[in-house]
């Protein structure tokens, strides 16, 4: 057999005809949805309904469309929201002409694409934006492949549906094969004006949080943990003027979660034939919402993260942070329907569709899980914590710690670590500790750590840097995050992500740059190192071609998806030379993470939290490479 360069997906003539018939039916049923969201998806022998490179024209305008059965006025790209699938080929020179038919400036940012700064589409950073009536032509060489997305980088336009998927076909064979593919684009839609959402958040951070704890929850905790511990825990949260149920800022109380533009009740359906291997390209194009994605009854094999191939990981569920993408393979053997279930991280709602052999089928919708309470791990980074109250800490609060991993620790030290003695710990020396680092400590490397040094040393005192690819103390890559019960099912972890081969630049970092993710929850101020974008004097400087380690320390009690434009971040998840590279890194509360960056992209680039209202509130910096 001759080695073919591309995997081929032969479909018989009959299959193609059948597919065509179903397509006709499907597009009639789907009405105004983008053509790429057709129920038969795409395969190499049957491409249609997309805008294909290298030359693409897009127009941006506001249109009245039904969303979840109500009249809405989203921002549409070529007439639909979400916009058309942009399909490019690795090696092409893409030319994208974007015409602004809005009455305000707009922009399109190609999220995750490596391109010249002037083509990146962040207004005020790398270009002027696109004025009303103007056409801007983006031109760039396509130097990568995989699943990405595009969205407005102007104001809060992204919340109005100004988003769409990008698929770049590979020049070389990809490390997996499949018969059919579907794009699953998750978004969060609100019928409120985004500016009003922002005002509401500034009025009260808990504005959309209808899941605050009640007296019933209190009594339940008393039953479980006793009155004293419960009361102490509650007092602690009250003292911090925070709620342990701040899982998301904006919730299902205003959001309708959409899958390919469709509300859960509309049951968007992706079709397959039993036995086919299907590639699902999952994109979180939400403004504010993290999702936990699963397909009850099917194992999903994760084969790419943020567009980049990773060694395959079979999982039952994965959490997708805002702006991340994951590609998974599924092989439904049975001629039956499966629910595509994307549950919002705060459990206030879900996006849903169906994977089925025929239209009109559906499977059971899983019950939503209860909202989680943030445990002690979320408080880890808060220096102002009352240490005395730590004595009352109960085990449930310590959920973030995995005791089984502690085997490598010096047992003589451990013996002294029972909870009763914690009260007697020397608080003076503890306060000198970086609590955020203590939290998710990498237990595997702990064995080698000298505990006597740990108690009173700041990490910056450590002579020398960690080797490239090593996980920072304080990272929690082996935890799926809030609201996921460990062991319940196999959930993707950042520590699972491994590339196939080392990335081209294998230099060790020359320097470390540490940034803290900071916020004032009550006033809805979000920032880096305590300074809003409007308060900083200049950009963060990367020396051209330097290799640096970016360390991100989350001092807040929320997850932040941190996105760097123009350059990959190689996530130091402990995989050594095989660390994965990402465009967006989720940083959990109290966590300390790091990434290696090769500063090879000259120019000014946006660097920000991809929660839209956090970015707008000031969690944004410019990185200048020169």
């Amino acid at each position: 057999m001759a080695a073919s360069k591309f995997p081929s997906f032969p479909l018989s003539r009959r299959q193609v005809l059948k597919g065509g018939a179903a397509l006709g039916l499907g597009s009639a049923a789907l009405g105004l949805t983008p053509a790429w969201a057709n129920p038969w998806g795409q395969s190499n022998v049957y491409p249609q309904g997309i805008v294909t490179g290298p030359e693409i024209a897009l127009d941006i305008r506001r249109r009245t469309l039904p969303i979840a059965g109500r009249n809405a006025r989203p921002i549409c790209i070529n007439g639909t929201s979400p916009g058309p699938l942009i399909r490019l080929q690795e090696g092409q020179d893409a030319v994208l002409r974007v015409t602004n038919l809005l009455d305000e400036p707009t922009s399109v940012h190609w999220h995750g694409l490596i391109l010249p700064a002037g083509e990146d589409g962040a207004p005020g950073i790398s270009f002027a934006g696109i004025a009303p009536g103007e056409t801007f032509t983006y031109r760039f060489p396509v130097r990568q492949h995989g699943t990405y997305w595009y969205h407005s980088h102007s104001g809060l336009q992204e919340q109005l549906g100004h988003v769409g998927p990008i698929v770049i076909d590979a020049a070389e064979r990809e490390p997996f094969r499949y018969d059919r593919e579907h794009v699953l684009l998750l978004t969060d839609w609100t019928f409120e004006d985004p500016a009003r959402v922002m005002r509401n958040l500034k009025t009260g951070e808990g504005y959309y949080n209808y899941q605050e704890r009640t007296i019933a929850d209190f009594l339940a905790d008393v039953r479980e943990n006793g009155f004293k511990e419960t009361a102490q825990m509650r007092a602690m949260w009250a003292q911090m003027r925070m709620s342990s149920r701040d899982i998301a800022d904006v919730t299902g109380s205003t959001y309708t979660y959409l899958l390919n533009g469709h509300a859960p009740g509309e049951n968007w359906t992706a079709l397959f034939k039993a036995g086919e291997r299907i590639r699902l390209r999952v994109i979180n194009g939400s403004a504010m919402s993290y999702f936990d994605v699963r397909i009850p009854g099917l194992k999903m094999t994760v084969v790419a993260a943020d567009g980049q191939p990773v060694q395959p990981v079979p999982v039952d569920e994965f959490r997708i942070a805002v702006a991340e993408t994951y590609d998974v393979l599924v092989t439904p053997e049975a001629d039956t329907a499966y629910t595509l279930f994307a549950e919002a991280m705060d459990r206030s709602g879900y996006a849903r569709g169906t994977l089925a052999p025929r239209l009109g089928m559906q499977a059971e919708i899983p019950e939503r899980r209860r909202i989680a309470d943030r445990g002690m791990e979320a408080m880890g980074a808060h220096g102002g914590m009352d240490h005395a109250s730590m004595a009352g800490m109960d085990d449930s609060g310590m959920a973030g710690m995995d005791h089984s991993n502690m085997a490598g620790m010096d047992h003589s030290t451990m013996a002294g670590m029972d909870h009763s003695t914690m009260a007697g710990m020397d608080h003076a020396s503890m306060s000198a500790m970086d609590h955020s680092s203590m939290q998710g400590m990498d237990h595997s490397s702990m064995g080698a750590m000298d505990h006597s040094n740990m108690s009173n040393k700041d990490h910056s005192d450590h002579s020398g840097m960690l080797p490239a690819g090593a996980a920072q103390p304080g990272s929690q890559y082996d935890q799926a995050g809030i609201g996921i019960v460990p062991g319940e099912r196999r959930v993707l972890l950042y520590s699972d992500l491994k590339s196939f081969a080392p990335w081209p630049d294998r230099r060790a970092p020359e320097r470390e740059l540490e940034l803290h993710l900071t916020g004032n929850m009550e006033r809805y101020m979000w920032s880096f190192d305590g300074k809003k974008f409007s308060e900083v004097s200049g950009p963060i400087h990367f020396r051209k071609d330097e290799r640096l380690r970016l360390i991100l320390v989350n001092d807040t009690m929320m997850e932040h998806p941190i996105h760097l434009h123009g350059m990959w971040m190689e996530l130091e998840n402990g995989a050594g030379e095989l660390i994965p590279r990402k465009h967006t890194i989720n940083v959990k509360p109290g966590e300390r993470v790091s990434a290696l960056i090769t500063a090879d992209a000259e120019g000014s680039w946006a660097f920000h939290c991809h929660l839209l209202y956090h970015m707008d509130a000031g969690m944004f910096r410019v990185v200048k490479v020169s």
Partner: protein
Amino acid sequence: MRKMLLAMAVGLFSTTALGAGEHGGGHGIQSDVQIDRTISFEAGDMWFMPGNLDIAPGETVKFEITNTGNLEHEFVIGDAQAQEAHRRMMQEMGSGGHGGHGDHDMAEGDHGGHMPAVTIAPGETATLVWTAPENVDNLEFACNIPGHYESGMSGDIVIQS
């Protein structure tokens, strides 16, 4: 029941499979076996070439499998059910503990129920001698390291004269 018999048949025939490479030591009998055919296989990330195999019942084949990928692979022969059982076992081995400790050499496990198998390190070539059974029509060759089969590392063995 039929499937179970099939699995047993495969088990029986595996006694005539001789592995070289990592598994060479495991099988004591060095061969006087008559080799009818030598077939070169390539194991890449994540595929086998050729993708399928036609073989006559009773034919003895020597597989020479070269791993041209970056990852370790295995080449296991069995029916779909046995492959799945093997896969499940490998997966459980891999996710033992609490994540982040996935560095076990997962291919080193027992190849569930004595299936003919070799493990091939990146850049290496391993051989496997195997005689096709007389009473089975279809088998699979596969790599069952977690995620590899799911990514496409499998093929059909059609046994007919």
